[in-house]
């Protein structure tokens, strides 16, 4: 799951740095991801994992780190 998340971040996150250099707990917004790019990340994650983020998850905090994304996806896939 982590590799897929990172591939999507690399494609849609518009980072000024290599995504591989970002740790699991690093703040993705501080690393350069814009809020609008995070929306694209969310939609690409939905396509890839065949899930839909509920309205309660449609906020920046859900996508603030690789770990947060993994946690949200695990919750959705497990539910």
């Amino acid at each position: 799951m982590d590799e897929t998340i990172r591939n999507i971040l690399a494609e849609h996150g518009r980072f000024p740095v290599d995504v591989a250099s970002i740790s699991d707990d690093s703040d993705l917004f501080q690393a350069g991801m814009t809020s609008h790019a995070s929306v694209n990340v969310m939609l690409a994650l939905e396509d890839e994992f065949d899930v839909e983020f509920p309205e309660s998850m449609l906020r920046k905090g859900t996508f603030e780190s690789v770990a947060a994304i993994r946690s949200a996806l695990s919750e959705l896939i497990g539910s």
Partner: protein
Amino acid sequence: MSAGPAIRVGADIATVGEVSESIARFGGRYLRRIYTEHEIASCTGPPPAAAASLAARFAAKEATIKVLRPVGHQPDWRSMEVRRDPGGWCSMSLSGHAAVLADEAGIAELAVSLTHEGGLAAAVVVALCHEASTAREQEEGLSQTRADGTR
């Protein structure tokens, strides 16, 4: 320190091209997750013009978050809605957690201004804070007075 109303200001900028790309890539799903029905209906015209209007609204939502100053739980995008008056001007309407944050900050009035030019869109949001923030300012002023040993 003045005991008058406090003012908060938020500003943000968005790239029209990124909004166009998101619409091309994800279509209506992108629109429905971020914008309210009213906002989508307000952004009509040729695709570049519609994308510019949507980008300005996205910037307005970001500017509103800066005004609300959330800690932890962030408001979702659709809880901050740009309402377009038939006269052409816009206002910001809050619901859900965004409205709760505004109440906690004592925000009594919100004003928003949108613009777009040359591939960029921007928004400025101004909030006028009444009771809660004014009372807090007065309390902080009293605390400072006590700390100084003055009356």
